[in-house]
């Protein structure tokens, strides 16, 4: 994001069919800096609208019953209370649940990216029989509605003795991470000129040496991008985890399953403040991850795909 201040070279006029092409450089710059502010205002407005639901979640966690029961919604809490957060931190299953989710997610991301990367290399660098079939299959895999195969999936895992184990859930998550990883990384690898590998080999690298020194580093942005994508998918997944881990007790329940304990049930009312506080706290690691990798993610999200 180094070139951010460079003025946009074009304005988005509502396209008259023939525009007079030439403009002097001065007018364009002057015009653009005014326009930049117009765009800034529009963008900020959109950001506010987008952020509003999040804002609403956050203030709900601080509201006291006086605001919660007022007839008209209050945009700012009349007094702040940390009760909702206290409830969450007093909950003994919060941290273990977060830990299970972390283990699950890291496992699914590492395994998914590794497996997907190898397959992406195969698809991008090799011409083999069944290649097209494989690519199409990966797309079809993404179309299979997960809820439709829940029960059979459970039967498979049960027979493999993997219900109740985090590893079984990690394997199940690979179904929706691996195809995406293959699709995205393939584009990255294709864009690495084959000559580079060859040059490295001429310089005395073995095949695998060339692989690790050339392909892997150049694919890094793609790896980060797909990792973040897989991370979010795995982190927020609820139904598969809740089902496959159902017989393992509370020690391996995930953060999403834990969160459902705060919704309303036939036997008690929901504690929305705590539920939202829990939701935010559970999202926090994802947000931190984003901030950390922000630049790489946005650059990497398509760096390969655009040239695909």
């Amino acid at each position, binding site marked *: 994001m180094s070139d951010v201040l460079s003025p946009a070279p074009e304005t988005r006029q509502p396209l008259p069919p023939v525009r007079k092409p030439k403009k002097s450089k001065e007018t364009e710059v002057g015009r653009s800096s005014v326009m930049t502010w117009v765009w800034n205002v529009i963008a900020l407005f959109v950001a506010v609208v987008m952020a509003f639901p999040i804002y609403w979640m956050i203030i709900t966690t601080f509201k*006291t*019953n006086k605001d*919660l*029961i*007022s*007839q008209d919604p209050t945009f700012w809490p009349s007094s702040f*209370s940390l*009760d*909702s957060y206290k409830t969450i931190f007093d909950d003994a299953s919060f941290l273990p649940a977060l830990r299970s989710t972390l283990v699950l997610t890291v496992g699914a991301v590492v395994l998914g990216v590794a497996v997907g990367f190898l397959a992406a290399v195969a698809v991008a660098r090799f011409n083999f*029989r*069944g290649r097209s079939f494989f690519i199409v299959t990966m797309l079809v895999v993404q179309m299979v509605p997960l809820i439709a195969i*829940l*029960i059979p999936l*459970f*039967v*498979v895992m*049960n*027979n493999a003795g993997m*219900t*109740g184990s985090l590893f079984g859930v990690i394997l199940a998550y690979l179904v929706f991470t691996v195809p995406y990883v293959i699709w995205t990384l393939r584009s990255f690898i294709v864009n690495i000129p084959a000559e580079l590998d060859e040059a490295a080999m001429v310089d005395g690298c073995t095949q695998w040496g060339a692989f690790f020194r050339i392909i892997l580093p150049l694919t890094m942005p793609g790896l980060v991008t797909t990792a973040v994508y897989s991370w979010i998918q795995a982190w927020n997944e609820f*139904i598969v985890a*809740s*089902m496959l881990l*159902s*017989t393992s*007790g*509370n020690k391996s329940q995930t953060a999403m399953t834990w969160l*459902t*304990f705060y*919704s*309303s*049930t*036939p*036997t*008690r*009312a*929901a*504690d*929305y*403040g705590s539920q939202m506080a829990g939701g935010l706290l559970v999202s926090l690691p994802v947000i931190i991850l984003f901030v950390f990798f922000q630049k790489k993610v946005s650059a990497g999200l398509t760096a390969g795909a655009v040239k695909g």
Partner: protein
Amino acid sequence: MNRKIAAVAAIATVLVASACSSSSSSDSGSKSSEVLSKDGKGKKITVWLMDDAQKQWNEVVEAAKTQFKNETGADVEIQWQTWSNYTTKVDTALLSDNAPDAIEIGNTQAAKYIDAESFVDLTSVKSKFDNSDKWLDSLAASGQSADHSKTYAVPYYAGARVMIYRKDLFEAAGVTQAPTTLAELKTALDKVKAANAGTANFSALYLPGKNWYSAVSFGAGSFGVDGVIAKSSGDKWTSTLTDPKFIEGISTWNDLQKAYSVGGTTVDETDQDARMAQGNIAAIIGNGWEVGSVIDEKNGNPALKDKLATIALPGAAAGDPTPAFLGGSDLAVPAKAKNAGLGATFLQIFTNTAQQTALAKHAIPNAKNLVDAYKAADKANEATGNAAQGKTWFIPNSPLWSGSNETELKNALSAIAAGGDPATELKKVEAKVVGSLND
């Protein structure tokens, strides 16, 4: 190429073969040992209970655990559950090879699992369970086979809906005597409504459109509690939703709604406590525990603490209240449990007179002779206790009844609340609600 195909095919065959072979060897665990076992030295059993117990009557659970340990030598691990998505969880757990040794299920879910023989048959030891001859009828029935000859699930606790109202608002409007009939209720609500005409968005009696429990209660009030929604003859269910009597009851509900309830046509009852805490609702129909949630320190309004009262929902005549839906929980031993005998023993201890009497401070216990203890525990419990002891209705007790049927019914009622004609809407949904019971 060929090898690849062969490899995939081999994996697939193995998976399919193993899946098929093991899924057909089902109820092996149930007959191996005796139904009630005390031989638990060094063993540990797993029990699924709703977290309501953890939050409200944890001491009952602890006491049962201690007694169980003393009598059998085995430890108990409680795994707390919540109703959200519970059906899917139980479905899969009962299919799996490491099912828990005892589980809690909703009384509306029981028929499905009993039909699938997923529970251990407890008929032979039923008499060894305390008060088993005095179990609440409807709750006991939910744990029995379709012909009521066998018992698979033990009643745990019950819940019934009553009218929760603002004594202060009623008294300010000149209603000092709690209404005992529907006619009196209407007169009272008219007065409350008139007295609060100045309050914006005021409901004298808030009846959300999707609260099918209260709507069908009115239907059962005029139709009768037997065979409400659908009645069975042999295996066949016939709908009673379009019975003129039932429609009449639904119309009563709808008239009350039109006259006294503002908003809420498209929502269910989950937020009615929070809404009542806002102050513009004078009465709701809800479970006994909802009083606590209206005056909750955080999400409710503690100022209403002494201003709420409960009565059984008035019916056509005094002393004949509108029947309540009898909700509740059962306990059962999964057929695939590893320690089924110990699981049954735990249930025997957990539902004995001592534990149930302790539980009666918080919920309606499972036996008629213990309900008095419940009523004595708190003044507010009297109405719920009476409602549970009086006439109650239940869903068609078919293994094919599921959440989807309830949703269809809720949505039809919501359409009525939004202005639809009761007879037309019920006619429209009849096939969807009842038709699927005959598949």
